[in-house]
C-alpha cells in the first residue's frame, strides 16, 4: 500500500478520454482509479478513502451533476472536479454552487488539471482532519452519562451550578460532581475549551 493513499477517481464514458486522463495523472504521480460509467463508480465508492473525483459532465444514464449530488449527500464530502466538452454557463454555475472544486473545459491541460487536483487534495485533507477531530469529540461525548450530558448542555448555555441544580431538581453539590467528571472524561479544563468543543460537535446552547 502506497504511503500516500490520496486517489483520483476519473469517471468518463469515453474510453479513449478515460484512458488518456488516467495515464497523464499517473505520470504526474497520482494514484488513479478509472471508471467507465457513473454507476460503476458509485457501486465501488468508499467515501472514507481519501481522494477526489474528476467527472465528465455529459454521461449517459447519470450525468455529472447528479453524480455530484450522490457524492456530497449527508456526511460525504468528496471533492469534485468537472470536465466538459462545452462551456455551458448554467451547468457550471450549478456545479460550483454545489461545491465543485472547478469546472474545466475539454481538452484540458495537465497543468490545469493537476492544479485543480491539488486544491481538491487540500480541501479533502482539511475535511478529513475536521472529520477526525469531530470523531474524537464524538467518541468522548459518547463516554458521558446521560446526566453528565445534560449538565454539559446547561454549562455550555452559560448557566451557573446553582441554577443548573434548580433546573434539574437537585443540589449544587451533585452538579459539581457531574461537572468535574464530565470535564475529566472530555479532557478539558476550562469552560472556554468546553464551549469551543461543543461548537465543533454542533451542540447548541
Amino acid at each position, binding site marked *: 500500500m502506497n504511503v500516500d493513499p490520496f486517489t483520483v477517481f476519473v469517471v468518463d464514458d*469515453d474510453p*479513449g*478520454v478515460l*484512458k*488518456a*486522463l488516467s*495515464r*497523464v495523472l*499517473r*505520470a*504526474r504521480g497520482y494514484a488513479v482509479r478509472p471508471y467507465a460509467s457513473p454507476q460503476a463508480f458509485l457501486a465501488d465508492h468508499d467515501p472514507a478513502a481519501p481522494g477526489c473525483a474528476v467527472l465528465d459532465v*455529459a*454521461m*449517459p444514464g447519470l*450525468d455529472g451533476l447528479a453524480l455530484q449530488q450522490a457524492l456530497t449527500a449527508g456526511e460525504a464530502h468528496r471533492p469534485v472536479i468537472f*470536465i466538459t*466538452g*462545452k462551456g*455551458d454557463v448554467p451547468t457550471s454555475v450549478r456545479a460550483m454552487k454545489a461545491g465543485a472544486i472547478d469546472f474545466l473545459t*475539454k*481538452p*484540458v*491541460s*495537465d497543468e490545469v488539471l493537476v492544479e485543480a487536483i491539488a486544491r481538491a487534495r487540500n480541501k479533502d485533507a482539511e475535511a478529513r482532519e475536521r472529520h477526525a477531530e469531530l470523531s474524537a469529540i464524538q467518541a468522548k461525548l459518547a463516554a458521558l452519562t446521560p446526566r453528565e450530558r445534560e449538565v454539559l448542555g446547561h454549562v455550555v448555555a452559560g448557566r451557573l451550578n446553582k441554577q443548573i441544580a434548580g433546573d434539574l431538581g437537585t443540589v449544587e453539590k451533585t452538579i459539581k460532581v457531574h461537572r468535574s467528571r464530565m470535564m475529566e472524561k472530555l479532557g478539558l479544563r476550562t469552560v472556554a475549551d468546553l464551549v469551543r468543543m461543543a461548537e465543533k460537535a454542533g451542540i447548541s446552547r
Partner: protein
Amino acid sequence: MCFAAAPVILSTIDAASAEARRVLLLHAFGHPYSPWSDFAASFRAELVKKSPDPIDLYEVSLDTARVQDPQGEAPFVEYIRALLGGRSPDLIVPVGAPAAFFLQRHRAQLYPTTPMLILGADLRRIPGARLTKYDTGVLLDLDLPAYLDNVLRLLPDTTNVAVVVGHSPVERYWASEVQREFERFGDRVTISWFNDLTFGEMLRRAATMPPRSAIFWFLLSEDAAGVPYSQDRALETMREVANVPVFGMGDYELGRGIVGGPLMQTQALGHAGAEVALRIFKGETPGDINPPAVLFGAPTYDARELQRWGIAESRLPPGSIVQFREPTMWEQHPGLAVAAAFAFALQTAVLAVLLVQRRRRRRAETLLKESEERMTFAASSVNLSLWQFDRDTGELWTTDNCRTLFGLRDDAALTREALLATIHPEDRESAVASLRQALDANQFAIDDFRVVLPDGRIRWVRARARAHVGNLGGSNRVAGTFIDITEQKDAAAEAGLRRQEVAHLMRVYTLGELSGAIAHEINQPLTAILSNAQAALHLLDQGSPDSAELRDVLKDIVHEDRRAGEVIQRLRGLLKKGEKKAETLDVNSLVHSTIALLRNELIIRKIAVKVDLAEALPAPAGDSIQLQQVLLNLMMNAMDAMADTPVAQRFIAVSTRTTSSGGVEVRVRDRGAGIGPAQADQLFQPFFTTKGHGLGLGLTICSSIVQAHGGTLSLKNDESGGAVAVFTLPGHEILLAAQ
C-alpha cells in the same frame, strides 16, 4: 511589283520510262485575264492530252503588261532561272505579245537556243523579221472592221457605237489600232471611246446609251483609274446594266452577254499551238514551222441575246451558228413529233372522259392540300414538327420547320441520316432504338434527346413515334412528332439545382443546431490526444522511460487522431454542396454513423436509442450524404417530439429490414405525442412546422430525396404511442430517377 508561279507536274507517268518535256508557259498578265488565260488553258489541255511524253509545266505570271517597267525586269529573269533550277526548258511559250516582248528582251539570259512558241499575239505585233530560227508563233490576225460590219449588218439603224477598251499599255495599243481601222465607218456611225473612263463611269454610260446605239466590248483588264478587272465578270456586270446590245471580240465571251458575230478563236488557237509544240518536240526546227494565223471561225451568236434585242435570225450572215437556243420538238425530232401529235389526238379523247374524274380528284386534292397546310400551320405555330418515315424506301417526310428545329441549313436535305447526325452522340443510340421499338412492337414510343446546333448549343427534342399500320396490316412506316422541350428541361434542371441547394442549406441548418454536440464529438479525441501527449512528455522526463508504454501512448494518439478525422469527414460530407452521386449504400452503417453524430445530443437530451438492424440487407444505389440527411432529420424530429416526454420514457428505436420486394426499409420510432389529426395532411407541406424553432422544410426535403431515390417516405402514429417514420429504398436494379 508582284509575281506568282505555279510549277505543276501535269502527268503522273513514270519518269523512268519517258523523259518529261519541260515547258515554260509565260504570262504577261495575271492568270484570270482573258483572252490570254483562255489561250493558255486550251493549249495546256490539248498538249497534255496529245503528248506521248509527260509534260512538266512551269507556269509563270508576270504582271509587266499592266505595270510595264523594263528597267525592273531583272528579278523576273532571276526568278525564272531559279525556278527551273539550272535546267533549261524544252519549250518556252509566251502567251500574248507583252510576254513575247519580255522574252525577246532577255533571250540572252533565258535559254537563247530553246525553242520559243509565241501563242496568241497578233500578227501586227510580231513582225516576222524579229523572229529567230528558234522562234515560231501561232498568231492571230484580227480583222477589226469585221466586228463593226457585223454590228451594222444586224442593226443597220445603228448610229452610235461605244468601244470598251482598257487603259493598260497593251490596251492603249489596241485602242489606237481599232480607232485607225474604224475610221472608215466615220460617215455612218459616231464612235465613242471608253478608254479614258473608270469602270463605274463606263457602266453609267452603258446604262444611258441613246437609242440606235451598240456597245463593242473589246478588251478591259485595267480601267483609267488603274483598277484591274478580270474581264468576264466585268462584262457580265456591264451586260446587266446596258440598255443597248453588247457585242464582243472572242469566243470566250459568248454566253456571258454578247450578241455574237465573228469571234476570235481562243480554243482553236490553243489547239493549233499544241500541234506546233508537238512538232517541235519531234525535232522540227521552229523557224521552219510557219503555222497559219488563226482567223475568225463561222460567226456565232447567242440566241437569248438575239431574242432580247429583237434581232431576227434572218439578218445573220449565211453559215452562222446560233448557240444557247431552246430547241423546239419540231426542230429536233420531226418524226417523233408527228407520232406524238397522233398519240396526243388519241389521248385527247381519253382525257375528255377523264376530265370529269380529274376535276373531282382535283377538288379532293385541293381539300387535302388545304388540310395539310392547315395542319402544318397548326403544328408550326405550337413549335411542333411532324414527320413520317418509310422503312422500305428510307424516305423521310417532315414539315419544313424540322430544319430549324434540328439546326439544319435551309437547303440541307432532310434525310434520316441528316437528322441523326445532329443528335448528340450519347443520345443517338437510344433515339434509334426507340424508333425501332415503335416499328417492331407496333406501339407508341417516346424519347428525349439532345440536338447539337451548329453553334454548339444544345436543344432538347422530344420525339414521339407510332407505327403506321398500312392497308396490308404490316407496319413499315412510322410517324410522329418532334417538339422542342429545351425550356422544360432547363426548368427541370433549375428545379433540381434549387432542391439541391435547399437540401444543402437544410443540412447546414441541421448541423448548426447540432454544433454543440458536434464540438463535443471532436473535443473527445482532442482531449485524449492532449492528455496522452502530456503523459508521454512526463514519461520522458522520468529519465528511463518505459518504451513499451511510450509506444502504447503514441498508438493511442494515432487512434484518437483518426477518430477526430472521421468526425470531420462526416461533417464535411454533410456540409458539402454537390450533385447527387450514385453509389452502393450500406444502410446499416449510415444508421450507425448518424447516431454517432447525434450521440452527444442524445445524451444531453437524455434520450435512449435502441438499434435493431437486419443483417445482409440489400445494397440500394443512392447518395449516402443525402440519405444520411434523411436519417438525421427523422432522428432529430423524433428527438424534438419527446421534449415533453418524461425522461424515463424517452426512447428512439431505429430498425432496418429487407422488404418483400427486395428493397430496404428503415423505421424511426419515437415516444413523443404522435401526430395530431389536424397535422397529418400538412406534414409534407413546405414550411409547415410544429416546432418553435423549425424551418418546416425537413420532411419536404426528406420526401423529395427519398422519392428521387425511387422510394417512399411515410409518417404515422405508432400503436404504442408516439410516431413512426418509415422510408423504403428499392434494391439497386431499379434505375435512379434523374433529378
